């Protein structure tokens, strides 16, 4: 069952949600940076940009997450669990961001090992996604199976802007359903005309995405190109920073370190890490299997479009194109893998 919500009511809905949950939505600051920030009122939501500079990933998979607190004194060692995560709403992310949660969620449950920090957070998070009306030149979500500016994978509630200032609201999960039933005064039932309008929206939006990758073909090429001389030159412009990996909705690699406050108190912390860093694979003593910048560059693309496909039958990428925009030297992930 689909519903309609008028755009003015979206702000009212946000104001209501703020009262009971932590609501994160795109906010614009003085430097024109648009990031997911905690809303104090619905009016703070900035809905005019297609993509935020970084993803909403860090609202569920924190960039630095305290696993537990450690107290070590003469009476022994005591571990204290962190507080339970709060009920959270991520509002206004895009289908590519939402699908990222679906992809890393599988990793965090891989082979029977359940990552409880991620799992607890995602269970308490409601993801309200807005379909993309104006995809940009860096977008390539349609290259992926089911990828589209209206894709609902990973979302709890999908809003698709239609003409006449209203959005079609579709509950994808029970959490999405709960938003519609809990705040029913803002939603009215949609008719066949609106559902048809969504199909037109999809066609129009998809037309704007001109780049389409042959991902099965690329996977096949990558299978045999590990030793290709292509990598000798392809990596040269790359400066091996971690911008691409940190703005990515699917990059999940992490490090576990200790944050010590004094000789007694410390915290075990997980922080995002990046395969671009020399430190990522350097062992104590200095041996490093990926010491070459070339090897690290290759690893990123191989992981996303080859190794991860072997393990999970899907690419570690949603086609959001953020890495292309964030790259200080404008490396285009699409052409890197197409030109192998």
């Amino acid at each position, binding site marked *: 069952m689909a519903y309609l919500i008028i755009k003015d009511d979206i702000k009212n809905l946000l104001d209501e949600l703020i009262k009971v949950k932590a609501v994160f939505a795109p906010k614009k600051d003085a*430097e024109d940076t648009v990031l997911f920030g905690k809303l104090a009122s619905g009016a703070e939501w900035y809905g005019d940009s297609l993509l935020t500079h970084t993803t909403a990933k860090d609202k569920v998979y924190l960039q630095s997450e305290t696993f537990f607190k450690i107290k070590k004194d003469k009476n022994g060692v005591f571990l204290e669990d962190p507080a339970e995560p709060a009920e959270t709403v991520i509002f206004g992310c895009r289908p590519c961001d939402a699908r990222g949660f679906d992809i890393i969620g599988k990793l965090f449950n891989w082979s029977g090992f359940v990552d409880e920090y991620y799992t607890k957070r995602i269970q308490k998070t409601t993801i309200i996604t807005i379909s993309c009306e104006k995809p940009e030149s860096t977008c390539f979500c349609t290259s992926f199976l089911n990828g589209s500016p209206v894709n609902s994978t990973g979302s709890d509630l999908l809003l698709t802007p239609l003409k006449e200032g209203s959005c079609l609201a579709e509950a994808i999960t029970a959490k999405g359903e709960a938003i519609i039933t809990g705040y029913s005064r803002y939603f009215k039932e949609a008719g066949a005309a609106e559902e048809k309008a969504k199909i037109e929206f999809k066609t129009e939006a998809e037309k704007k995405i001109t780049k389409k990758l042959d991902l099965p073909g690329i996977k096949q090429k990558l299978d045999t190109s590990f030793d290709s001389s292509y990598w000798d*030159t392809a990596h040269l412009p790359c400066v091996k920073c971690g911008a691409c990996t940190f703005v990515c909705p699917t990059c999940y690699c992490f490090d576990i370190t200790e944050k010590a406050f004094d000789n007694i108190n410390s915290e075990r912390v997980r922080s995002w890490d990046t395969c671009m860093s020399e430190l990522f694979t350097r062992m104590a003593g200095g041996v490093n299997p990926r010491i070459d910048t070339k090897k690290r560059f290759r690893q990123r693309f191989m992981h996303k479009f080859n190794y991860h496909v072997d393990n999970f039958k899907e690419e570690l990428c949603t086609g959001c194109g953020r890495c292309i925009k964030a790259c200080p030297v404008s490396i285009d992930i699409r052409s890197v893998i197409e030109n192998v």
Partner: protein
Amino acid sequence: MDKELQDLIKKLLTEKKVDYAIGYEKAYDEFSTRPAFVTSAEDTARLIFNKYCINNLGLYLTKLKKNKIALICKGCDIPTVRELVKEKQFSRENVIVIGAACDGVLDKRTGKQPEKCLNCGVKQPKGADFTVGTAKDSTTARNFNDVAEFEKKSSKEKMQFWDRQFEKCIRCYACRNVCPVCYCPDCFAQRSMPEYLNKNVDAEENKMFHMIRMQHVFGRCTDCKACDTACPVNIPLTLLTKKLAKDAKELFNYESGADMDARPPLSTYDEDDPESGIM
């Protein structure tokens, strides 16, 4: 201008004067370029120069130390080459500097000209081995007005401003990795024995990182703005790098990458050295 540039590089490569030409090529759309590494005369057709050529290619000199390189530089990138030569990171004989006349570049993130272009005295490059093109006007004197304006703020205001900036920082190290003078193979930020910086990303650790980096590049940073334009979350690092340039100028009458013979301010001692920088 592209043709002139391509012909020159074709000649240098054909005559084996250089192994690599590092220039710009079109990136993902008409509004973006990326560094291009060209090794053969046949491959020069992709080289371009336009107002989207924002990267400072001097960055790559320390990564290709053993090679002879033709490097395309805007007027504002040339001090980087001088600084690296001065720091003995690269031999001047190994680099042919091709100056590209530039009427200002556009930041791909904002579509606007960065502050350095509005405040530029080297649109027509100075100190290049070859120059292509002619800039329209080239005589804006450099000023530090924006930094001076910022200095007027109270400590509390400054702190609030930077706290807000470093809260945004994701410690991707793009600023460090695009910095031509941040070439340390083992940056303090990744040392484990001792551990100067915790991997934990929060405003305090981030601030620590940026402050130490700024200290490390004082008197070496040419204020090229590579770090500022590289930041994926638009932290205005230009305010810091320009402050470094201003302090070097005002306290030590020194400009990084300008005079090959001047001694860097932090490697000399004079009884009359100002102490205002001591915390």
